[in-house]
């Protein structure tokens, strides 16, 4: 998007970027004011005792009490004492020279703090480019501190290298927006770390397409350290007893396994072993067919298994051969009555009881 020249000049100058930090109030107001005051000091040193100089200092002296009193002194120590009685009234229609006109600093119209990103989107190159990519800024600003983080990013230094990295990895451009909406912190992770993690995955013989697919499905994947990824891959290989290529296949289909905690997975495996009574090779078959059972809700799994095995009288070995029943939405107990409730109303022969 072409940003207009006036916007670019405003945006690139230092006072504006300081004012764009919306998180805390006091230090930024002070920095805002002190930076303006620095600029007026330059104008004063160039032109001695001009009317515009006193006008500026008069305006600065009337600012709120956060203003640092020490900085008034060097001004007054020069020969320009502010004599309010002999103040010459300036008219806005007064003609001033070209040099003076060029040196006028216009304070930015951006609010120093805001609860939404709306005032900053048009002025900030990063934010407008993110909107054009398809990032849902409204969703991101609901999360604490993410809005401030995005506004502080510089497009050419921070965002562009990471977007190019993701594109080189093979992530489709249409999916970049969704990826950044789920995980905006990929823009603050250092590119060296990201490259190290990708090279680790490739060393474990994940193909380029599978790495790209994994990053698209689990946007937080590359924010985890190499040790953590290694730990998880090792756990799945050892615990399930699968060969390397099958583990790779399971992880490529459900990369969320590498992101979350291992405790729920361990509990689910215990449930399968002790409550349902499946043996090792049956569990391997279940996990390779439907990897979702490892992170499914333990209570819902038990409810569905109880219903299918005890009420519908399906043998446990048959459930092990067709584990899709354990995650199907049709049998799931939920707030609104579904097929399972209708099945309960039917008696044992599948005929209405009354």
């Amino acid at each position, binding site marked *: 998007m072409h940003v207009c020249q*006036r916007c670019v000049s405003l945006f690139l100058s230092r006072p504006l970027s300081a004012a764009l930090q919306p998180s805390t109030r006091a230090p930024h107001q002070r920095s805002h004011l002190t930076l303006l005051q620095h600029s007026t000091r330059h104008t004063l040193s160039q032109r001695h005792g001009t009317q515009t100089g006193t006008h500026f200092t008069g305006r600065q002296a009337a600012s709120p009490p956060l203003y640092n009193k020490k900085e008034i002194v060097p001004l007054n120590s020069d020969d320009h004492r502010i004599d309010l009685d002999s103040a010459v009234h300036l008219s806005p229609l007064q003609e001033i020279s070209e040099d003076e006109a060029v040196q006028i600093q216009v304070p930015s119209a951006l609010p120093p703090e805001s609860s939404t990103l709306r005032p900053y989107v048009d002025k900030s190159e990063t934010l407008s480019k993110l909107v054009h990519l398809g990032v849902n800024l409204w969703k991101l600003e609901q999360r604490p501190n993410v809005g401030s983080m995005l506004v502080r990013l510089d497009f050419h230094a921070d965002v562009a290298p990471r977007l190019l990295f993701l594109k080189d990895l093979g992530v489709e451009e249409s999916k970049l927006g969704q990826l950044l909406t789920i995980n905006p912190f990929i823009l603050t992770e250092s590119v060296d770390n990201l490259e190290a993690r990708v090279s680790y995955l490739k060393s474990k013989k994940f193909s380029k397409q599978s790495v790209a697919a994994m990053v698209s499905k689990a946007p937080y994947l590359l924010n985890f350290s190499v040790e953590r990824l290694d730990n998880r891959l090792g756990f799945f290989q050892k615990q399930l007893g699968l060969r390397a290529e099958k583990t790779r296949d399971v992880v490529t289909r459900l990369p969320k396994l590498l992101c979350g905690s291992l405790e729920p997975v361990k509990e689910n495996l215990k449930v399968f072993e002790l409550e349902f009574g499946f043996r090792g090779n049956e569990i391997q078959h279940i996990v390779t067919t439907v990897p979702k059972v490892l992170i499914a809700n333990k209570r819902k799994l038990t409810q569905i298994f109880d219903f299918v095995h005890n009420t519908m009288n399906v043998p446990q070995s048959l459930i092990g051969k067709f584990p899709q029943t354990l995650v199907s939405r049709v049998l799931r107990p939920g707030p609104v*009555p579904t097929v399972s409730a209708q099945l309960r109303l039917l008696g044992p022969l599948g005929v209405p009881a009354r």
Partner: protein
Amino acid sequence: MTTQAVRLFRKMDGLFAVYKPQGVHWKHVRDNIESSLLKALNSCPPAAPQLAVHFQLLSDGKNSSSKDLVPSPSMVPVLADHPLVTGPQFHKVHVGVGHRLDAFSSGVLVLGVGKGNRVLEHLSKSHVTRDYTLEGEFGKSTDSFMDTGRVIEKATYDHVTQDKLERVLAMIQGANQKALITYSQVDLRTQEAYELAVRGLLYPHGKSPPILTGLRCINFNPPHFTLEVQCVNETQKYLCKLIHEVGLELRTSAICSGVRRTRDGPFKVENALTRQHWTADSIIQAIAHFSKTTRKIRKSGMYRQTAGQFNSSAQIQEQTRRQSEQINQEHAGLSSSTSDAVGDRKTPS
């Protein structure tokens, strides 16, 4: 300039009735209705975005040979109005629930939207009665009085006949009539009170335990039986306990296998929306259908509030009883005109 979404939102003000299915918590019903209303509101096209002047470096159009890039102005939509930055137009629609129904029961559930929530308050303070259909089964007794609970004891029910059941029901009704007269704080020796009692316009004042104003047996096939109940200030658990007590009086045991509310004040089950109709246009149609009753409830509620300020208790009772008489007459009037309401509803697209 109002947008289409705002105009649709302004139509969502009033009361309507919904048929709550069995096994569902009333909160899920309320959330479902709120999300379907929000979905309809947010699917409306948003207001046109503001335009701003932007300077773009384009090549000079006059001479195609010259390669000078000249900043030329154009009107571009402002990104601050982009849907990815503003978010959805509506975040919340206020949907309130009238007399609640627990998960085991089904039937009419009155909901209020927007300004209708104020009228819900008046409805809850007004002494409208509710109609229930209770399904019971002789022979068992459970810990929760419902058929889903753990069975505690079993008993024979061969000796139970319809005659005995009706006698027990008459006894219960008599006890409830006495309670009604006591709690209505009325001296039956006065002429006006006698006339009200004859017309069936007595109601309990202030806090009272559940009182049944009507009770009869519709169906009797032992072990199953069905009762029809009109009551005030009740809970569904109390009605299940009533079935249990009927069983005790008949020297057997009974459990409740179904509670179904068929009427809540002027809202009847024929006009309640079923699950296929929980969409914005059906709801707005239902609100329009009930707008007259909503207005009458609001008027009687406001009258009750202003009458309370005058602080003369006998006068209040007389005048509020006249209001409730009007509402009861509307019940009779509505019951004759329910047939047209169901046919008018369009199938939602």
